[in-house]
């Protein structure tokens, strides 16, 4: 038994190690792409009017005059031993692990992510719970009432969900609930530590907006998977035991239908934790997504790279959790170690 637990630990360790490779690949690709980007990185911080010479100075100062490999090496070394930028009186130190420094925002990337992540996480996790619940419940109802008007209504509403752009849903939500009915506040993030009540109150609208589209997809998934499992023999057994229909559906039908839903959920949550761009923008909540877009627009490579790697870590971790969840959800699955 300890032997087996040892195996699980080794498996997880190996997955985490391979994560490093994934991150290195992503970092390299990011550097290469930034190199390929049509716009000059120094453009954004050159000032106005700009001269070729100033641009060259800025490039040199930011280190973009080096080759991709050198930049990558500098980055990796920064992570391991820290690095410093600039010289003389303006020198900025970034101690290990240094994931870069943004001159645009005058802060280390790690600290920026640290400030922004709670906002994104609040939006993502809450929204995810809402859509998971709504989607699964909707899917169950649609599946159990297959072919009825209720099923078609669920279909229609999910179609609205998947075909409506988040931007539209967000603005509609703001107009309707925020301004017209004036029941929910629009935007303005309140930290959880400041007031849990206010925190949730201000997040309700973003949660609903995020959940709107996603719930639709989950509804469809749940419906189709549940239709598959509900005709299995063990569901008949469960009925024969005299279980309540709800328990039959949830414990036997749904439980077996969840595998793809869980996969999708892990993935979506992982991606969302890396930044809910549109939602953050609409609700003026400065999470990682808003920061990422700003940084891309300003070609702030260190921040872009930092957020990218951070969200890659989240995605990889989410996948690991999902893979572990498979084994719990379907005990027949074993992972090749």
């Amino acid at each position, binding site marked *: 038994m300890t032997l087996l637990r040892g195996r699980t630990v080794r498996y997880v360790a190996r997955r985490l190690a*391979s994560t490093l*490779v*994934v991150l290195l690949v*992503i970092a390299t*690709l*990011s550097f290469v*792409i*930034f190199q*390929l*980007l*049509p716009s000059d990185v120094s453009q954004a911080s050159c000032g106005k009017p700009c001269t070729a010479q100033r641009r060259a100075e800025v490039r040199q100062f930011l280190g973009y005059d080096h080759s991709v490999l050198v930049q990558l090496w500098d980055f990796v070394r920064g992570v391991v031993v820290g690095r410093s930028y600039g010289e003389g009186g303006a020198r900025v130190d970034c101690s290990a692990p240094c994931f870069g420094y943004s001159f645009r925002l005058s802060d280390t990337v790690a600290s920026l992510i640290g400030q922004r992540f709670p906002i994104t996480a609040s939006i993502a996790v809450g929204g995810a719970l809402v859509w998971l619940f709504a989607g699964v419940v909707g899917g169950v109802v649609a599946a159990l009432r*297959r*072919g009825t008007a209720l099923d*078609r209504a669920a*279909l*229609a509403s*999910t*179609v*609205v969900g*998947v*075909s409506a*752009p988040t*931007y*539209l849903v967000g*603005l*509609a939500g703001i*107009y309707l609930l925020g301004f017209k009915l004036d029941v929910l506040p629009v935007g303005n993030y309140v930290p959880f530590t400041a007031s849990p009540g206010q925190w949730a109150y201000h997040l309700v609208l973003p949660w609903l907006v995020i959940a709107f589209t996603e719930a*639709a*997809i989950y509804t*469809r*998934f749940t419906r*189709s*998977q549940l*239709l*598959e499992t509900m*005709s299995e023999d063990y569901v008949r057994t469960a009925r024969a035991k005299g279980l309540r229909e709800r328990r039959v559906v949830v414990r036997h039908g749904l439980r077996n239908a969840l*595998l*793809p839903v869980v*996969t*999708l959920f892990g*993935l979506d949550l*992982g*991606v969302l934790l*890396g930044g809910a761009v549109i939602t953050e923008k609409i609700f003026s909540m400065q999470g990682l997504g808003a920061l*990422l*877009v700003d940084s*891309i627009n300003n070609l702030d490579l260190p921040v*872009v790279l930092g*957020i*990218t790697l951070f969200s*890659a870590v989240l*995605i*990889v971790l989410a*996948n690991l959790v*999902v893979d572990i969840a*498979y084994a719990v959800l*379907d005990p*027949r*699955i074993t992972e*090749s170690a």
Partner: protein
Amino acid sequence: MSASEYAPPPSATSAAVRAGGETVVSRFCRDRWAVAGVVVVVVLVVAAFAAPLITAINGQNPYSYAYRGALGDDGAPVGALGGVGLTHWFGVEPLTGRDLFAVVLYGARTSILVGVGATVVEVVIGGLLGAAAALFGGWTDRILSRVTDVVVGFPSLIFMIALGAFAPEGFPKGLLVVLVIGLLGWGSTARIVRSQCLSLMQRNFVTASRAMGAGPAHLLREQLLPNLASTLIVITATHIPINIGYEAALSFLGVGVPPPTPAWGRTISNAVAWIATDPWYLLAPAAALFLVTFAFNLVGDGLRDALDPRLAGGE
């Protein structure tokens, strides 16, 4: 003792044959909603194809500015319902005065092509790689899974900006969009397919097939695919509208189908800003997108149900 000696009554025998003989097609055709979905899709595709002929009726095209008489000084359409009338069946576009009916009809060409094309690329790549990871396991699985991680974790936004500038200008934009969306979007499909395949591989009928010496290709085609169908159908049906919207996002990054070629996604995203002042602008393209999505989902549901023999005769 022979089979005929204790055969069931003759009537039952012939019925048995027919019961089994029911095909997927006939089951599908029994679902009126699904058939309606097919009809809608076909009608729309034909209409999109014949757009020049149809818009010839009211003498409109989706390109010409026609602000004289159609737009007020503030750039908004004059007249009720966003300028709906005999010449402009769906009204006109604010700020330009273009005929919305023509815009929506021509837009169907781009949007359906991109929506369906990109989704097919996504589902085929994701499906194959996900299934391969599960089927081969071991190193194959490990490498494919990490590649998937990279694809999902990769900052696609920057990539698209770079691509927008680097794709040769002569490269067909529609194809480019299909490839960009497809090649960057297969990650989630791969993960889902992998997880389902892992589960299916433990089922006895797959074991039975392996026991007969079936290779991976055969397993995938014969055993896994029929049981993945419902998952793939859902992915396809939900991704089509998402990708149509995605096309709009891409056109803003310069990778999309460039204006003035109409596309629903772009029209919708333009119209969103007008929701308070000229809601009719949004209505036509949004309704069209809804209709297509709904139709594809109806077809998907119908197909799913038809492919599931255990639901046969359920209605």
